[in-house]
């Protein structure tokens, strides 16, 4: 008799891939639908707002809310000291930064840890990385050049360079102000602890946060420098309980680092096998 576990395993292995033709058709129709949706005016929101303002009770409630909103921060200010750090300061400090360098340890698809260095710039819309270079200690290199729309993956162990059309490797989401804003809104747990950085002695805040969602849990420790307000180290786990080894440990994060000239160009080494995809 075939055990149920075998069947579950089989079902988990079910995998279908979309065809190139389908991808083209869906992308084309999606972008058209998105463009058409732009033409639809947002009248609904306007109507609701007008209804609220017309109602006398709503007017009174709105006035009361405004009074509370003004009075509450003043009362708090009288009895407490100003916080040393708030995520909004980081969000403000991080805007306008357009390059990042970090180094640390991460794990590959087989769960093996490896050290890495990473340089990247965001895409135009800021959703993910565009230009990118990632170097592993073992010699593997991945270079993405957004302008040329090409991705190189070099494995010195196998002496192979895979040349792929388009951006086939990227970091997402890009860690910018919006990332932290969403993180603050979404995380179910959020703890701030003020202490000095063990290596530099600089004043820092350590933010421990976790994001619970069925099937997609993450937890984070971000370390922000209190003077610059920028993140300088981070650890990310792919579970919501900080269990086990982190998925990524970035021991050094530098925003707007001066990127070395030609860092996103890749020179194919002589004598390697080139695989074009």
């Amino acid at each position, binding site marked *: 008799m075939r055990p149920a576990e075998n069947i579950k395993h089989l079902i988990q*292995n079910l995998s279908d891939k979309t065809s190139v033709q389908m991808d083209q058709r869906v992308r084309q129709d999606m972008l058209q639908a998105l463009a058409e949706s732009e033409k639809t005016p947002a009248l609904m929101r306007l109507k609701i707002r007008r209804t609220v303002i017309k109602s006398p009770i709503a007017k009174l409630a709105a006035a009361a809310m405004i009074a509370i909103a003004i009075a509450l921060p003043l009362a708090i200010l009288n009895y407490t000291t100003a916080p040393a750090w708030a995520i909004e300061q980081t969000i403000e400090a991080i805007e306008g930064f357009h390059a990042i360098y970090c180094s640390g340890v991460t794990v590959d698809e087989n769960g093996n840890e490896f050290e890495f260095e990473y340089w990247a710039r965001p895409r135009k819309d800021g959703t993910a990385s565009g230009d990118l270079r990632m170097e592993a200690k073992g010699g593997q290199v991945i270079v993405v050049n957004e302008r040329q729309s090409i991705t190189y993956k070099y494995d010195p162990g196998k002496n192979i360079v895979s040349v792929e059309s388009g951006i086939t490797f990227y970091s997402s989401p890009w860690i910018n102000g919006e990332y932290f804003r969403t993180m603050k809104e979404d995380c179910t747990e959020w703890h701030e602890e003020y202490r000095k950085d063990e290596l530099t002695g600089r004043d820092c805040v350590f933010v421990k946060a976790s994001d619970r969602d069925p099937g997609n849990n993450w937890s984070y420790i971000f370390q922000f420098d209190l003077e610059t307000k920028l993140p300088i180290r981070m650890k990310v786990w792919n579970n919501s309980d900080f269990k086990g080894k982190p998925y990524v440990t970035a021991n050094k994060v530098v925003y707007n680092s001066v990127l070395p000239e030609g860092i996103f160009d890749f020179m194919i080494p002589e004598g390697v096998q080139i695989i074009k995809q």
Partner: protein
Amino acid sequence: MLEDKLLVLKCRHGSKDAVCRIYEKYKDYLLTLAKGFLGEQSEAEDIVHDVFVAFARSARQFRLTGSLKGYLATCVSNLARDRIRARMRQAEALDSTSPFVAGSSNPEQHAAEAEELTRLRQALRQTPYEQREAVLLHIRGGMRFREIAKLQGVSISTVHGRYRYGLDKLRSLLNSEVKK
């Protein structure tokens, strides 16, 4: 989750790149589910197409309350159910025997797939739709019974039952296949 929220936020601002990235991220997952529900490649592709186009059309007003993956899987499931109902109506009209037993996948694809998976797909086609849906959404879709119950409009215990019966049916179909 965080990545999805950011992508949805970008979509609301009309980012083409974000819409395409959501498609790239979930296209294979949704196609696998749709094909599991329907057994037909072309119908599954149509459903995935319709789900993403509808998503793009409403992207500017879209508000994500749960997981995007779950939302898209629910959309696929709803459309698949509509298709199954349409098939059943058609089958009744044509006095057909069963809408599920359809040797429809193309032979080249069958040859390429592992033999076991092909047998599983055939067994899935012969499993009652609600049971098949519960099994696929829970095991392959990663959805909780509570979420599936909401989607199917039944109690959690009913979903548990459908899931258990579905697995038993698959097991008996696959075992009888082996004995042959």
